[in-house]
């Protein structure tokens, strides 16, 4: 694993050190089985979802509703809350726990209306100078007729553009599935974290297998090939740090998972404190512009 160089040019040395520490802790390169276990844990039906974390991490939570145009998308949650006494704006995809809620929240797959709700929350954060926390947990943006007609691609693009313009500190954490454009739409942030058993990928293992192997059942093989696990994402410079989960996975102990997540978020926000808004923005763009491998 060490033969792949650390990417992501725009980092500070303190961050590099932390990266190194995390890489050391991870130790051996994840096996194909480890990767597939992450895929399964990331989708585990008892894994904590955005609102499970909200209720454990934030005080005075007030949920925002609606995109001020067409509707209120249940797959995207946005609101204000206090993290250790500091007001933050939080957005995140939300899957459902039971079948009614899953239907109401489209299994965590937002329509354009969901991304517009998130953008409205970003604007509020910018106006009132609140940091933004973004929790990513989606198989992808909703792939339906109305979603396309309402401009799914454009909404995802503009949500990222909005995030690239913010001058307040922003932190994202992938807490389950970080699926493709639907995920990155809310993850263009100063710091990008990922839970130990979360996955972050450009396509689902099943989708990749269906296209490249001509067989969706080859999903495990596909996952091993494109490596959506946290360790590889860290190594590629796509994320800045891995958030530990309770032994056995976040689903085994929601309270403990929330405490660990809150600690990482707090740490990231503390690091960003005191940096001027335009400098934050400059570094944020430089960070993402440095991603890629070519010769």
């Amino acid at each position: 694993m060490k033969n792949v160089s650390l990417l992501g040019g725009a980092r500070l040395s303190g961050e590099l050190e932390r990266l190194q520490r995390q890489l050391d802790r991870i130790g051996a390169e994840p096996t194909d089985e480890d990767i597939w276990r992450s895929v399964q844990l990331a989708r585990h039906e008892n894994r904590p979802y955005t609102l499970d974390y909200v209720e454990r991490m934030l005080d005075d939570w007030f949920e925002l509703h609606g995109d001020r145009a067409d509707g209120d998308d249940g797959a995207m949650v946005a609101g204000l809350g206090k993290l250790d006494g500091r007001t933050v704006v939080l957005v995140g995809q939300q899957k459902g726990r039971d079948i009614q809620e899953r239907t109401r929240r489209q299994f965590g797959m937002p329509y354009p209306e969901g991304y517009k709700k998130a953008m409205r929350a970003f604007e509020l954060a910018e106006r009132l100078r609140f940091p933004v926390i973004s929790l990513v947990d989606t198989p992808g943006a909703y792939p339906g007729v109305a979603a396309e007609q309402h401009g799914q691609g454009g909404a995802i693009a503009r949500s990222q553009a909005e995030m690239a313009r913010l001058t307040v500190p922003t932190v994202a954490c992938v807490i389950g599935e970080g699926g493709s454009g639907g995920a990155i739409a809310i993850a263009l942030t100063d710091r990008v974290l990922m839970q130990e058993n979360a996955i972050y990928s450009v396509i689902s293992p099943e989708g990749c297998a269906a296209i490249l192997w001509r067989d969706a059942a080859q999903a495990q093989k596909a996952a091993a090939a494109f490596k959506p696990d946290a360790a590889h994402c860290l190594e590629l410079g796509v994320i800045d740090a891995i958030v530990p989960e309770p032994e056995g996975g976040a689903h085994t102990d929601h309270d403990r998972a929330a405490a660990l997540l809150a600690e990482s978020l707090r740490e990231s926000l503390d690091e960003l404190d005191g940096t001027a808004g335009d400098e934050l923005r400059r570094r944020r763009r430089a960070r993402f512009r440095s991603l890629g491998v070519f010769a």
Partner: protein
Amino acid sequence: MTVSKIDVSIETNDKPAPPPKHPNTCPRCHSHYRDDELEAALWLCAQCGHHFPMRARARVASLADPGSFSEEAADLHSEDPLQFFDLRPYTERIAEAEMSTGLADAIVIGQATVDGRQAELAVMDFAFMGGSMGSVVGEKFSRACDSAAERGVPLVTVTSSGGARMQEGILSLMQLPKTVCAVEDLHDAGQAMVVVMAHPTTAGVLASFASLGDILLAEPGALIAFTGPRVVQQTTREKLPEDFGLAEQNLRFGHLDAIVPRDELRPTISRLLRLFDAPV
């Protein structure tokens, strides 16, 4: 355990529809053409106006003043960060695409003048691995933004892409925020971007820089969708409208400024460069 059946990626990626018997047969009216006939006609069907796919270099030649194009970053090549191997190694797929297209990747960028006005061009080529967006596409598009910003000229982008370069894994997804940030830097420098969406403009490219043009144009009949019709149909079992995802539907739903036939693109872009006060 919820296993998602949703595939939000790109149905056309690396797997274009099987070509008709003869590649120069119009799929709409079945007219046949010789290569030189099509080339002389901007790859438009003389009978029905169908827009055949157009290669990046031909596109550049059709837009730029003769001899004005000066290519940039032509030597950038993909690496294989994941040592990706599906039915074949990624390196082999790239080598094959290079051979068959004569390009180093799915985008060509450079400086040019259009009717005497300076612009930066960034033109994608679907023939190179379905126009999929890997690190090289992201980097070259971003450099085009910087070149336009530094020289104080507008950027004209022609898109054609099936979506992500799966073989680069998560780094392929990272080309979305990367190119978005590049467009924001271009805009902060006060420069405009015109986007021409050619068939197909889908998935990651649509969900990043393609949608951020100050002016959004499309060629007639182009598929413009985040998720294409086949995946929508398979996933949701919804009945699809007749022109689902086509440029015409996108215009009706407010996502485009205009649909411009290929033979009117050059004068349209010329007019826009005048409006943007592009330097002479």
